[in-house]
């Protein structure tokens, strides 16, 4: 292993690589154009590191979004050689360094400047599916007196979809988004399933207006590209198909969902010796 790393280092560190970056300044450019930069690779360099190096040493006007630099914030998704990727998680050595590496802003989003996509419609779509637990006992949500029951098995049903970091890579990969600009998109639809599958939620009906409209869930024809592009393993296309099933069940009157009840502390039980006390309650005191 160590020998492999030494070999890689020898092959790449110090190698000069060309980056072709899409540039667009809305105040002076009529259309985007490519600009090339050459930099020397350093050890463990990601595409985002390369962009930062270019900005620091060659062109301070280069614009891109980034924050955490470790695949958590979802800010730095871009098209790298035509494929949507989190640039902070893409090692330059994964790519063919003998050819210029092309970096563009995420496809299917308008360009604000250089590599910065306009995420406003994307975030509006997410908001439209009501991304929060909806229950008939709204009073309990506003002024909680306890926790809702949820078994580990129930948690598994939606947990995968809760890992979404809203990077937008799935929309850049989606062929329906490429032509239907109003399509809700894989992220919002998978997020809708995340809540519908949550045992505490009763909001399917309230979400239908956004989810099952003319540009909604049935415009998805299962190309699966969103799932391949997702850097967090969310598998939005899986969530979307499962949500279609929930909608079908609802439409034929077969959706019977009882939301998880409040967990009640059993009374009259005696703690066995040696079992530590639970932590202090944080709600409902």
């Amino acid at each position, binding site marked *: 292993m160590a020998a492999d790393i030494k070999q890689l280092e020898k092959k790449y560190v110090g190698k000069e690589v060309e980056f072709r970056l899409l540039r*667009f300044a*809305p*105040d002076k450019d009529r*259309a*985007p154009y490519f600009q090339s930069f050459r930099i020397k690779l350093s050890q463990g360099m990601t595409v985002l590191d390369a962009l930062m190096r270019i900005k620091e040493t060659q062109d301070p006007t280069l614009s891109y979004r980034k924050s955490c630099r470790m695949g958590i914030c979802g800010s730095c998704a871009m098209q790298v050689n*035509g*494929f949507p990727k989190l640039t902070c998680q893409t090692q330059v050595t994964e790519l063919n360094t003998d050819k210029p590496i092309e970096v563009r*802003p*995420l*496809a*299917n*989003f*308008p*360009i*604000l400047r250089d590599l910065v*996509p*306009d995420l406003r419609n994307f975030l509006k779509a997410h908001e439209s599916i009501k991304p929060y637990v909806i229950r008939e006992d709204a009073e309990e949500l506003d002024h909680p007196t306890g926790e809702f029951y949820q078994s580990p098995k129930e948690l*598994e*049903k*939606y*947990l*995968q*979809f809760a*890992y979404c970091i809203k990077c937008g890579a799935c929309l850049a*990969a989606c*062929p*329906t*988004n*490429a*032509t239907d*600009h109003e399509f809700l998109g894989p992220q919002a639809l998978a997020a809708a399933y995340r809540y519908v*599958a949550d045992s505490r939620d009763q909001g399917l009906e309230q979400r239908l207006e956004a989810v099952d409209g003319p540009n909604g869930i049935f415009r998805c*024809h*299962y*190309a*699966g*590209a969103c*799932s*391949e*592009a*997702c850097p*967090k*393993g*969310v*598998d939005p*296309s*899986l*969530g979307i*198909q*499962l949500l*279609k*099933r929930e909608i*079908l069940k609802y439409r034929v009157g077969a959706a019977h969902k009882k939301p998880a009840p409040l967990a009640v502390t059993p009374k009259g039980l005696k703690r066995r010796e040696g079992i530590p006390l639970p932590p202090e309650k944080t709600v409902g005191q």
Partner: protein
Amino acid sequence: MKFFQLEPKTHANYLGVKGWAYGGRYGIERYLYTLQRVTGLGVLLYLPMHLIVTSQKLNQAGWEQVMGLVARGLLPFGEFLVFVGGVFHAFNGIRLLLTHFGFLMAQPARPIYPFTVAALKQRWAVYLVFVMTTVVVGYGAWEFLIVAHH
């Protein structure tokens, strides 16, 4: 306090029809997505032409003349292509219908790196579509291109 928001000038960046048609480095389902829609359109375009031709009120001689016209040149091969498209569309359509309603889908699982997408777990359905299409098309090719011309 009231803030006003400036409407930023942006540049459209949709991949458009090219992005819709080109599957790039994505998996086989991405290509089937395009193929399903192209074959659907092909069958849809063929249907009115077929209806127009076959709904003519003709006597036997007229009918045979029309049939002679459509049996010329590349037209039988074109018809065969519509048949291939139709067969693929039907089998793939069944796979998609089952998928859309979650029947062929794997269950959600914790995303542990390296991630496997659910589509991979139902690849067998894609292969089954190919096998079924090949069997029916093979039989059709025999009927269309060999038996019908002897």
